[in-house]
């Protein structure tokens, strides 16, 4: 499947901003099942410095500096990405979770060592006894790792309520666990925390999800949002397998990957520090379109 994705972020400031430095994770990384065919990032006003590089986790990242006085900043990312479908392995055929855990702690081969760093606490996720207690029912002794992971996200999906008003970025995983509400990021952080609490490696995945309009309605431009899920390490043979607790499924070709890290902090779409500005507002519009749909005129609602 090929997608064209537009992700634009607009900041409106009450007072002029004289300088802003930003780090953007808005370019899809290539993966085993995904190839980014075209990509562009257009920033208005034009940055004085714009530099693309690869971050510690292998994600493409763009640093830019706007040095002219402005009261509005628009960051518009556009890309065309091809995603292959994914046929997940039979969960019951994956190794027992304890075996995966022990291999992580002892094996120093490249891929396993790389996966091992996702076992530990990260800026947004600190493992607590409460997280461990919540995780435990999914991790019966000897249970295959992917089965345990699927069970965990099924429970989160069942027991937590999707509620964009319930949480903010400063809501901790512990508060999400107690309140049983949140959005995709919260559920991803929660599931990652649970997996780490039993010694497994789990990483945060930032990306997009194709959304379909309700039956009989035309799709709305810009109504999509960026999405977040996670991946769990299932041992040398199976490697990383994605899990989407918000939708209780294993992502295939309707999830488009941007990048991954230990948690949101490593791959947030835009981080910035501004000088001046006063109060500011931010608006985000995301549009995910399948390539064949591009031929059809979308309605502007």
């Amino acid at each position: 499947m090929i997608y064209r994705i537009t992700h634009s972020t607009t900041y409106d400031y009450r007072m002029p901003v004289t300088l802003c430095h930003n780090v953007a994770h808005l370019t899809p990384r290539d993966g085993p099942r995904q190839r980014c065919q075209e990509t562009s990032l257009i920033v208005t006003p034009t940055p004085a410095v714009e530099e693309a590089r690869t971050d510690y986790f292998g994600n493409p990242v763009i640093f830019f500096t706007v040095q002219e006085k402005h009261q509005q900043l628009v960051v518009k990312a556009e890309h065309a990405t091809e995603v292959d479908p994914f046929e997940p392995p039979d969960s019951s055929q994956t190794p027992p979770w304890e075996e995966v855990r022990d291999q992580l702690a002892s094996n120093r081969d490249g891929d396993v060592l790389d996966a091992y760093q996702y076992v530990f606490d990260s800026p947004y996720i600190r493992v607590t006894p409460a997280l461990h207690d919540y995780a435990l029912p999914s991790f019966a002794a000897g249970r295959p790792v992917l089965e345990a992971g699927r069970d965990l996200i099924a429970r989160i999906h069942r027991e937590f309520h999707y509620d964009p008003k319930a949480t903010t970025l400063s809501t901790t995983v512990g508060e999400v666990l107690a309140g049983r509400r949140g959005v995709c990021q919260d559920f991803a952080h929660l599931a990652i925390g649970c997996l780490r609490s039993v010694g497994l490696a789990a990483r945060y995945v930032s990306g997009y999800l194709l959304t379909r309009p309700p039956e009989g309605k035309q799709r709305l431009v810009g109504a999509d949002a960026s999405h977040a899920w996670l991946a769990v390490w299932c041992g040398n043979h199976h490697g990383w397998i994605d899990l989407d607790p918000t939708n209780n499924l294993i992502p295939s070709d309707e999830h488009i990957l941007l990048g991954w890290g230990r948690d949101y902090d490593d791959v947030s779409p835009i981080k910035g520090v501004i000088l001046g500005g006063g109060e500011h507002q931010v608006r985000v519009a995301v549009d995910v379109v399948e390539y064949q749909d591009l031929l059809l005129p979308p309605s502007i609602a």
Partner: protein
Amino acid sequence: MTSPPASPPARPPHWETAHGLDYAPLPGFRDAMIDANGQQRPTWQPFFHALQGLGLPELTRRWDEAKQMIRENGVTYNVYGDPRSIDRPWQLDPIPLLISSREADLLAEGLGQRARLLDAVLADLYGPQRLLRDGLIPAELIYSQTGYLRPCHGVPVPGNRFLYLYATDIGFGADGAFHVIGDRTQAPSGAGYALENRIVLSRMLPEIFRDCRVQRLAMFFRTLRDTLRNLAPRNRDNPRIVLLTPGPYNETYFEHAYLARYLGYTLAEGGDLTVRDSRVYLKLLGGLQPVDVILRRLDDDYCDPLELRGDSFLGVPGLVQAVRAGNVAVANALGSGVVETPALMAFLPAICRALFGEDLRLHSVPSWWCGDAVARDHVLANLDRLVIKPALLNRRFAPVFGDRITREQRDALAERIRARPREYVAQEQIPLTTVPVFQGDHLEPRHVVLRTYLAAKDDGFHMMPGGLTRVTASLDTLVVSMQQGGGSKDTWVVSSTPVSSFTLLSTTVKPVELSRGGSDLPSRAADNLYWLGRYAERAESMVRLLRGILVRLTEKSGIADVPELPFLLQVLTSHATAIVAAGDLGAPQPDVELYVREMIYDEERMEGLVHTLQLLHRTAGMVRDRISTDMWRVVSGLKYPESSHTLPNRLAPIERNGTVSFETLADALDDMNRLVGSLAAFGGLAMESMTRGQGWRFLDMGRRLERALHLIRLLHGTLVHVSPNEAPLLEALLEVADSSMTYRRRYLTTVQTAPVLDLLLADETNPRSIVFQLAALADDVANLPRDPSQSGRSAEQRLILGAVTSVQLADIDHLAMVTNGTRTQLEHLLNKLRRELPVLSDTITQNYLSHLQPSRHLAHGN
């Protein structure tokens, strides 16, 4: 000296001298000066012999002088959590720690190897990570380590070198052997204090210092300076190097300012720096100046709020990018802190063998990282004889001594370790050697830890021949911490051969107020100097006014006797309301005395004198590196010490009702007289000891503006609404405005309104007149750095010239005319000035200090 006993006793006896410097070492511990037989160690003999030659009275006299010097130089150490003051005098002991050059060579060799090793570890961790793959460092130690900064991975460091200034805490064990207790790799503190200690002690004991052949410190700092200069990516000939400080509230701010001055660097806070075009710039009044090298005293994660730690704005947004682009060198390299964790110590011997094929020469204190299961079991089984320390850099806690806590506390600690083992390290307690400290008339033992410093040089390191010796606050503790009341000592490496007398000090005599002339002043410093001028003048005008009021209260029996008093009180009140804007100060208080006392002594009154003096002190502290030592001395003198005889304490006995016994008004008057003297001295020093650079201009603008505002209020409060009996009022006015003498000289006879008005308002030769302040302001404004492309007068120039002209053109007789009990013309003019001067202040701020606004994070959008 007593002769050695014929047969040495098993334990050190009470060691006595003919001159009263008695010393009894602590049984059971090794002492640095006295050996197990009660004999002085050979290294100490010449020193102690000379000290005894000096005698106790002379030692005491010199020590008092030295302490005075420490206070006057403003050597301080900020203690967190002490609300009384942000700084307290540096604690130094007059007896140095002596180390033989042989011991120093051993240390230098061992520490040099250790520094190279840690450098190699850092290069690997921020590069190929072979040490993790080979299992030489447990991967989980680095992966769980908050000090491991992923954004710094792969960031090029010049020469693959991370450490430029490296410090180690060394303990001396029972056999005198060195043990490394801690490594300081990101922004080691204390080298400046070591230098200050040296200067104090070498001046206090010059002949002993010389005779003992103490190795000098200057070469060390020259090495550091040369190394840092060579780090500059460009401008190698004359690179701009700044010392990046967290600011005046940091515990070691004194040292930052001191080192910056000594090394000839600009002291900069994060807010003084900005990143543009991936380069770091210093914000100066005249514009942005590129920075080539940053010697930082900020911890790693605080250095860049964009890429490193989101919740801090102490650093410089975009710094990591500037380093990545190779446009600025940071020493030590960002991320160096990761090897500070004591958890690493257990693995260093094996790493040293693997990387260098050498044995680790200098042993660490035996350490166990609880992230390792075997080590954890050992720690849990031996908790009562270990010291527990944090393994993660951002989860700091004070070391816990297993043998000094209760059983319950130990169980709770064990529980915490079991729950999050990776966050704990345990170290063996070493029986720290003791050293003698001076206690007024005798010596007492204290445990000692030596902090040594290494500076990078060529492909190795150069050790400071000395260091910062710290001693415990008492014998009950083994924690050596300045935060917890410990003291410090100079450290003498005594040679057997003559020493070089090279010194860097001559270069530091040059004031920072730049020889390059104009616009080299950081904007933040300009801002602080401006406010320093304002607070100093505000305090002085208040004190003069209060003195005028107190004189009248003490000399006369009541208000009826002093018709001018209500007018003066009204000026005091208008002064107060001008500062607090709102409040119930409208009418003079029924109890005049109480009101005046409160204005003088009450710390709670935001508009009162105490608070103004506190602001003055705090602001001066922020520009301590830019004002002369004498100016600082005057300001420190203003701050109320904690002793019993203090200004605020004089308020203490006051109660709003009931009888009170407090010190008399005459005492308050004494206080005011003293303060007038000090504040006048401050003003005089500002005039006489500061070069007329931009810094002085801003200080002067602050002074002039504040004095003009005060005079406007004074004239407004006394002359606008006419008093039936104006003569005593005019006298008081002249007195408070410090112009009585001038008036008498000029007019001799009776005091009349028009001449007084002329003298205080329009006389351009009277330094206490309004027009004098305005003319001085006009001169300052004309000399501010300006964009040459802008033609014509600047906004602030137009404002001030307008004000000057309106006073110059005023007709004094006209102003003195009274209509219906009011001098309307005078009121009109004063109101106009009162409106315009604050606009001038705002305009200057806008045009020269606007980029001082704080940085903020963008909100997240998804």
